[in-house]
């Protein structure tokens, strides 16, 4: 299970590619424009080019993303959509535009930090701007029918991923954490035309299973933004725990919302994407906290690992809020700061093992 059917490296991708970084990017539009949208998440360990341009106290994910731009030789890769998710992403945009001028398509998308009718209206205009940019670039108009079809395809993907999480919560699917998050990775990289049927097939087989009692392991939730690789999951589950749920933008936040079809598709996209449970860059951190609390109850979480990227101000500022809240509730809480260097595996393992002993 979770073999080559979920391996984008083994798939032939016909369409030219446009990369994206943040889950507030409306992939549907990129797809409807005739491109293959894929999430850039490179496991490059050294950033020899990017370090020349970006100071070392900027997010390691952004430095690796810029490095990807320098090292990428894929002839199908045409460009990127970069959102103003945070200061570091803004930096990525400036540096990509300046030092990678050979990238033929670079679009900067402003995503509101607030969620109300004003923001929906403004984000709709921003999405319209992205649509125009894609049309100008491709020389083709994005037809309504293409956009409707794209919306349905991506919404189907979200429904399937929600179902997968439900099956995992009910323990009706035998998937270790590494495989599970590999599937999540592929959901953001594989063409949906292949990913959706493969996942549907996996779910259908698992749905026939009965809910079962699994050997008791500490139930852990991961909260944060980015997962550098499944390595962290491997270490956690290798230490004897089970990652039962997450609040990660490489995990649930990718799909835990709906985009409803309507006569005004761009507004639908705007409303749908802004309806997501807010991430740390958004205004209302308490809503994020409430969602985490809900997940703790729903998934019977016994311990929380708060995974931050080094120099990520948004998550670093939220950390004390989360820590204090869950510690008052008696839920063990561990912070892991990831610098993406991969050199701290031994130390990480020791910390996690010590943390699990507390649970």
């Amino acid at each position: 299970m979770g073999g080559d059917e979920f391996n984008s490296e083994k798939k032939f991708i016909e369409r030219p590619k446009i990369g994206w970084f943040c889950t507030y990017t409306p992939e549907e539009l990129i797809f409807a424009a005739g491109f293959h949208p894929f999430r850039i998440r490179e496991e490059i360990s050294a950033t020899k080019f990017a370090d020349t341009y970006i100071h070392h106290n900027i997010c390691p994910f952004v430095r690796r993303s810029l490095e990807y731009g320098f090292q990428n030789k894929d002839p199908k890769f045409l460009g990127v959509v970069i959102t103003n998710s945070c200061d570091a992403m803004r930096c990525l945009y400036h540096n990509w535009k300046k030092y990678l001028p050979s990238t033929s398509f670079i679009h900067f998308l402003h995503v509101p930090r607030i969620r109300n009718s004003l923001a929906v209206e403004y984000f709709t205009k921003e999405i319209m701007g992205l649509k125009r940019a894609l049309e100008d670039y491709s020389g083709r108009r994005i037809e309504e029918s293409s956009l409707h079809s794209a919306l349905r395809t991506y919404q189907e993907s979200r429904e399937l991923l929600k179902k997968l999480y439900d099956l995992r919560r009910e323990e009706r699917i035998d998937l270790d954490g590494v495989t599970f998050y590999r599937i999540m990775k592929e959901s953001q990289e594989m063409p949906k035309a292949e990913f959706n049927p493969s996942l549907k097939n996996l779910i259908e087989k698992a749905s026939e299973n009965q809910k079962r009692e699994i050997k008791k392991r500490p139930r852990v939730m991961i909260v944060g933004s980015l997962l550098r690789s499944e390595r962290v999951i491997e270490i956690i589950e290798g230490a004897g725990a089970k990652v039962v749920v997450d609040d990660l933008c490489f995990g649930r936040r990718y799909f835990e919302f709906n985009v409803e079809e309507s006569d005004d598709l761009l507004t639908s996209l705007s409303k749908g994407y802004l309806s997501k449970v807010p991430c740390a860059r958004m205004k209302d951190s308490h809503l994020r906290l409430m969602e985490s609390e809900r997940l703790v109850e729903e998934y019977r979480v016994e311990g929380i690992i708060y995974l931050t990227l080094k120099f990520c101000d948004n998550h670093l500022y939220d950390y004390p809020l989360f820590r204090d809240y869950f510690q008052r509730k008696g839920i063990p809480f561990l912070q892991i700061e990831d610098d993406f260097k991969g050199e701290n595996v031994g130390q990480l393992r020791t910390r996690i093992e010590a943390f699990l002993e507390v649970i």
Partner: protein
Amino acid sequence: MLRKRSFYLKTKILNLLRRGDSRLKATRKMTEMIIDFILSSLKGKKPIVLTSIWPPSEIFYALDLIPLNVESVAASLAGLGLSDEYLAVAEKHHHSPETCSFLRCALGVAIERLFPQPMAVVATSHLCDAGAKMTYTASQIYRCEYFLIDVPQERGEDAVDYVASQLEEMTEKLAEISRRKIEKEKLSSAVKLSNLARAYALQANELRKAVPSPMRGSEALSYLYLIGVGFGSKKATEIYKSMARELGERVRKKFSPLGRERHRLLWLHVKPYFQTNLFRYLEIERKVSIAFEEMNHIAWNELNPEDPFRSIARRLIFNLGNFPLDSYLEVLSNISKEYRIDGVIHYAHWGCRWNYGRGKIVKDALNSLGIPLLSLDCDSASRRGYSEERVQNQIDAFLEMLG
């Protein structure tokens, strides 16, 4: 209470003791304005609003509220040698030492509940993430309403509409919380005062093009509070008027506090607010003039008092830190020509991601114009890790390059 009062008394005494130096009277008035604001807020006569830097200050003055900018408080604490104490408070409460020390220091002050109880907290999104996050945390500590004005990094009319609508909503809510009425005349008056301050600031900036420079850059860099939170207030307008008048007199008399200038520099970003020899070394010993600093550049057009929300929205959007990078570089290039700049010092405040993120691009752009840039990777609000010797060595090497 004693602790709070002693901080403010200490500041006042220091300000008095420095009479007789070459500072403008306007600068001393500005320091008094800040202290008076803070003391007024302690007395509770007017509601206060905690703010991030560059808030829509005209609205606060129109509603007769006191804006207390968190970064300015941190800067003042750094000047008094007290910032490390509050940084330690924040870190003790699990706030990362990797974040901006201005905001972390201000957070320490908030955790200790040393700010007077604010009526609300207002932040804008456009300069930095940490400003929005710190102020949100402060609103949770003080259990008061939090407003985040989301300011896009683009300057079209859609962005202006978006920001203006948010400002209007916020103003209604602030009026409701403070039980004040939104009076159109007061808002219009605050905008007119903002325009007047802008005009005087432009005059002052124009006079500073004179050679030799009529004002020390180290002094001009202390105008952070005024440029950030002062527009719309009568006092700020008076201070800029005084500044323009005094600089005019100095230029007529060909007076410069530095005397001879060996080089003229442009200063990017903020300065160290703790006590340091940096400026004494640069300006007095090495006779290097900081002719201008980006912080005091007026990037917005005159506001329309009849259309206050859209005008103020434009002022927020047309902040140099919010400019598209190409436009920002064009401004730097123009400033360099107009002020006859030989070189640039970029004081890269540790933890300021948006500023660090474009550092190389700015350096390359200026180098292509034949203008060398020195980047000082230092902190602005904490002495920790700051080395006078290292900074002096870097300056010496830079000045040697300038010739």
